[in-house]
């Protein structure tokens, strides 16, 4: 922590704004050289996410051009079938997992604190961990291409094609392990974006005054939190099947390949909206600015965002209409798929009404918005067509679906993204883009895109299946494929021009004026480019259009005329506010730059690589090292000298969050438990699905699990959680007598529970490679063991922290966070006991 030996400059003191800036820079500024790897600042990491995302976009784009070259003419042998399969699989994988989601997360990481009047995201070290996991995971997956071992089963990795029998190499393993690694990044960003938006908006910014972009990102982040865990579970199960022979998806062993499809699409369909929502957020931000008036129907847009977020989880089976699901069930999903068009249409009409009632200026970002509207509406209409079961059967697995998907994803994500990048470019760099080069880029991309994919609808309707590496002449597909390929190269030229414009503008762009687009958004009250701390002082914002209502805000903020214009304590501080009203509750103090996220991500990369190469002892060692790094990271929190050694605040200011019982860590733990709960529910779905549907399921006559053992373990766990609740209750009353002993005792109970559960697992003598029943029981108990062990270790750590004086009545926050985990552990443990040990005894096979 930085300490500045200087008197406090009181808020509103206009004599020393430069001094204040200098002080804040000393505390928040980024180091150079090797230490730049320790940066946790959201501005820098947001840029790193976006730049890395663009690199992966170029890789994915080049793969697309290889595909189009191969398909341009019939009977091409430009690529072998196996290489073609690798290229198409990697094109989809890179674009979806390494470009679309991370770049939008990067934009959100960069923009959200600036829009809501905060100085950083609420868990800066988590941002850093997320970035490194994304980078290392992305490199691992991409490396598979170089060694010609890339996954080749399609980007959705359907079993049994992706299973070891039909994909014996390392390709599927690269995908499963690499994507799971990258998903740590997505989940990290999801958790902290939710908490940041809810708890760190500036003073006065009530929920109904929040920028619409923040609403969109809130929905996206919650969808990531709930939507990614099913795929993580699926990837773990498939990797266990491939590496250890556990037959989750193998019919002969009692598994079912359709389970993979369910788990994948439980993630996969919300994923489309995870990508679309932030892009729509860009549209809802830009259209009012260029129309010169507030958006028509703010409440309608909020309604549409929430509806889209929910309904998108009820559509996954429309990707599986041809697998033999009963007609009535298909009809449910067909209806739900049509329902989702309603909120989307509401947004389109809101945008059109805003343009209609305003005076639109067709600047460069607006060109891309108009392109979006045209393409996305077409994609949405073909989406409604695909929701109809008979039509879906007709065009299933044809190029029609490929064309629809690109209309939705490129139209719905890429066009708004470029609009947003052009719009915020002056903020990133302080310079304006070239209108001429930018317009050329737009028109080439727009024409190229439609030439490629509009025509591709016909190719699909003429019956060309997707994922074929070549076709014979005379099938009627020759000319349409050639046109699509030409269009693809035109589009590439357009994108190259856009990237050239963006690259050149850093050197040759005209310097931007303050608030160059005459926007209403608070982000334009930052310097251009922004400082590491965003705002010198944190304003009171009670309007949806801060810069339209008070154009002087950039100046008064920079002069330190608003809140928290103090830096002499050396802490990185910002407001912690009420999620509903925006009233200030506490001062949140953030950790500074740190090596731990990088070290933890490196250890996790070793885990990933050693699992790939089947070096299991090395993987185990790396897991232990990663856990040690993460625990060491968690040590520097709360009242630790590196976080906030004393609780001194300026007179009249609220307390530091670590001295309250409701800091952001509590919220972060709750949101993490939501993700965990989604994983657990997916596991339960898998258990009941195999039990009821799998044709080869074999339930033994007698459960192999000791019910007595499980009941004792559950009792011990519940007792520990009860004692912890009592300790937390005492801390709320400012009592901490016996806290350390209590935490050690709770930890001991946690380890006893782990020991008994382990005994139950070992004594069950499960045949995990022969029966999916035994394999899935093993996974359930391993889950309980992992959580029990984590709860015990964290309680032990709390006991130690009490001893060091970092936790107690003066800093009561952390045991309440640990208690959340224990509550979750108790609930899931008893559900596991009920589902795995009691229900089979009651119902039988």
């Amino acid at each position, binding site marked *: 922590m930085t300490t500045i030996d200087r008197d406090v400059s009181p808020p509103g003191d206009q004599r020393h704004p430069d001094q204040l800036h200098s002080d804040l820079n000393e505390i928040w500024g980024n180091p150079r050289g090797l230490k730049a790897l320790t940066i946790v600042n959201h501005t820098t990491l947001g840029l790193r996410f976006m730049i890395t995302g663009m690199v992966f976009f170029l890789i994915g784009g080049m793969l697309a051009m290889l595909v189009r070259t191969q398909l341009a003419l019939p009977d091409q042998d430009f690529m072998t079938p196996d290489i073609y399969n690798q290229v198409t699989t990697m094109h989809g994988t890179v674009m979806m997992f390494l470009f679309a989601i991370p770049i939008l997360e990067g934009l959100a990481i960069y923009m959200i604190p600036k829009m809501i009047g905060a100085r950083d995201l609420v868990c800066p070290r988590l941002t850093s961990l997320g970035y490194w996991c994304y980078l290392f995971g992305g490199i691992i997956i991409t490396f598979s291409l170089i060694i010609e071992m890339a996954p080749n089963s399609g980007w959705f990795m359907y079993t049994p094609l992706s299973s070891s029998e039909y994909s014996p190499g390392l390709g599927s393993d690269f995908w499963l392990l690499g994507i799971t690694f990258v998903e740590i990044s997505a989940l990290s960003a999801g958790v902290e974006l939710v908490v940041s938006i809810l708890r760190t908006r500036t003073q006065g910014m009530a929920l109904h005054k929040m920028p619409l972009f923040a609403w969109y990102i809130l929905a996206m982040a919650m969808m990531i939190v709930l939507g990614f865990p099913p795929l993580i579970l699926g990837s773990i199960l498939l990797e266990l099947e491939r590496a250890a022979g556990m037959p989750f998806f193998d019919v002969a062993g009692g598994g079912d390949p359709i389970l993979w499809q369910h788990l994948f699409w439980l993630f996969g369909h919300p994923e489309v909206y995870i990508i679309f929502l932030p892009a729509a957020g860009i549209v809802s931000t830009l259209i009012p600015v260029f129309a010169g008036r507030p958006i028509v129907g703010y409440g309608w847009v*909020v*309604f549409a965002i929430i509806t889209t977020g929910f309904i998108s989880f009820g559509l996954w089976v429309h990707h599986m209409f041809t697998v033999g699901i009963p007609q*009535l069930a298909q009809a*449910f999903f067909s209806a739900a798929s049509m329902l989702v068009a*309603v909120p989307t249409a509401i947004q389109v009409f809101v945008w059109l009404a805003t343009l209609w009632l305003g005076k639109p200026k067709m600047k460069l970002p607006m060109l891309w918005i108009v392109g979006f509207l045209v393409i996305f509406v077409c994609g949405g209409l073909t989406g409604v067509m695909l929701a109809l079961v008979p039509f879906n059967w007709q065009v299933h697995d044809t190029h029609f679906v490929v064309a629809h998907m690109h209309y939705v994803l490129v139209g719905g994500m890429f066009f708004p993204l470029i609009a947003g990048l052009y719009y915020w470019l002056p903020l990133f760099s302080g310079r304006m883009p070239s209108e001429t080069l930018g317009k050329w880029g737009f028109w080439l991309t727009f024409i190229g895109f439609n030439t490629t994919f509009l025509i591709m609808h016909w190719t699909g309707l003429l019956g060309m299946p997707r994922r074929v590496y070549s076709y014979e002449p005379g099938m009627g597909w020759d000319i349409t494929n050639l046109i699509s390929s030409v269009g693809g190269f035109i589009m590439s030229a357009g994108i190259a021009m856009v990237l050239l414009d963006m690259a050149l503008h850093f050197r040759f762009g005209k310097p931007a004026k303050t608030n160059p687009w005459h926007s209403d958004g608070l982000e334009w009250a930052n310097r251009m480019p922004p400082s590491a701390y965003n705002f010198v002082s944190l304003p009171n914002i009670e309007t949806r259009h801060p810069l339209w209502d008070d154009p002087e805000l950039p100046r008064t903020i920079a002069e330190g005329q608003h809140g928290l214009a103090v830096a002499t304590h050396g802490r990185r501080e910002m407001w912690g506010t009420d999620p*509903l009203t925006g009233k200030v509750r506490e001062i949140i103090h953030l950790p500074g730059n740190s090596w731990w996220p990088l070290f933890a991500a490196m250890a996790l990369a070793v885990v990933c690589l050693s699992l790939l190469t089947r070096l299991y002892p090395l993987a185990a060692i790396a897991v232990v090292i990663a856990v040690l790094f993460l625990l060491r990271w968690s040590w520097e929190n709360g009242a630790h000298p590196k976080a906030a050694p004393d609780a001194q605040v300026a007179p009249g200011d609220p307390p530091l969050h670590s001295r309250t019982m409701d800091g952001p860590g509590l919220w972060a733990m709750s949101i993490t438990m939501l993700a965990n709960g989604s994983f657990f529910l997916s596991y339960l779905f898998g258990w009941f699905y195999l039990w009821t549907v799998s044709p080869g399921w074999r339930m033994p006559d007698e459960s192999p699990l000791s019910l007595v053992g499980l009941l004792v373990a559950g009792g011990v766990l519940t007792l520990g959680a009860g004692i912890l609740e009592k300790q937390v209750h005492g801390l709320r009353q400012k009592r901490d007598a016996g806290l350390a002993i209590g935490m050690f005792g709770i930890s001991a109970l946690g380890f006893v529970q782990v020991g008994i559960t382990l005994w139950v697992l070992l004594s069950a003598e499960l045949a995990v490679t022969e029966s999916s029943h035994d394999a899935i029981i093993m996974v359930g108990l391993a889950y309980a063991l992992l959580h029990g062990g984590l709860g015990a270790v964290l309680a032990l750590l709390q006991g130690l922290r009490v001893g060091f004086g970092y936790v107690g009545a003066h800093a009561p926050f952390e045991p309440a966070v640990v208690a959340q985990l224990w509550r979750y552990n108790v609930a899931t443990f008893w559900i596991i006991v009920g589902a795995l040990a009691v229900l089979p005894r009651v119902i039988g096979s």
Partner: protein
Amino acid sequence: MAIAIQRLHLTHPLHFVIGLTLWSAWFVTVYGGHAVACEVIPPDPEQGVFTLVNAMLLVVSLAAVGLLAMLTVGCYRMGKRHEGRLRFNARVSAGLYLFSTLGVLFAAMPILGIPPCL
């Protein structure tokens, strides 16, 4: 307890998510219930739509519609009594409950016309 009651108040933004959560719970219930019913009590295909499975799915759907409709009306009325933030919350919640109600009605329509388990 006081916090729980406060959060159940119809002007609390928690209602932004309750309606669609109920819709999701209904959706999972009819989809999952249909699958389980087909395993446990598969009806004779000759019965058409007049089966116990359809009847049970319909009852569950009507119950969901009733509950969601009540909440729609409650939020709508509450919105009229308040101004500013609380009015905004109640109005958006009313819209979301209405959408959820109509969503159940729309997605449940096939129960009236399609036999189960085929």
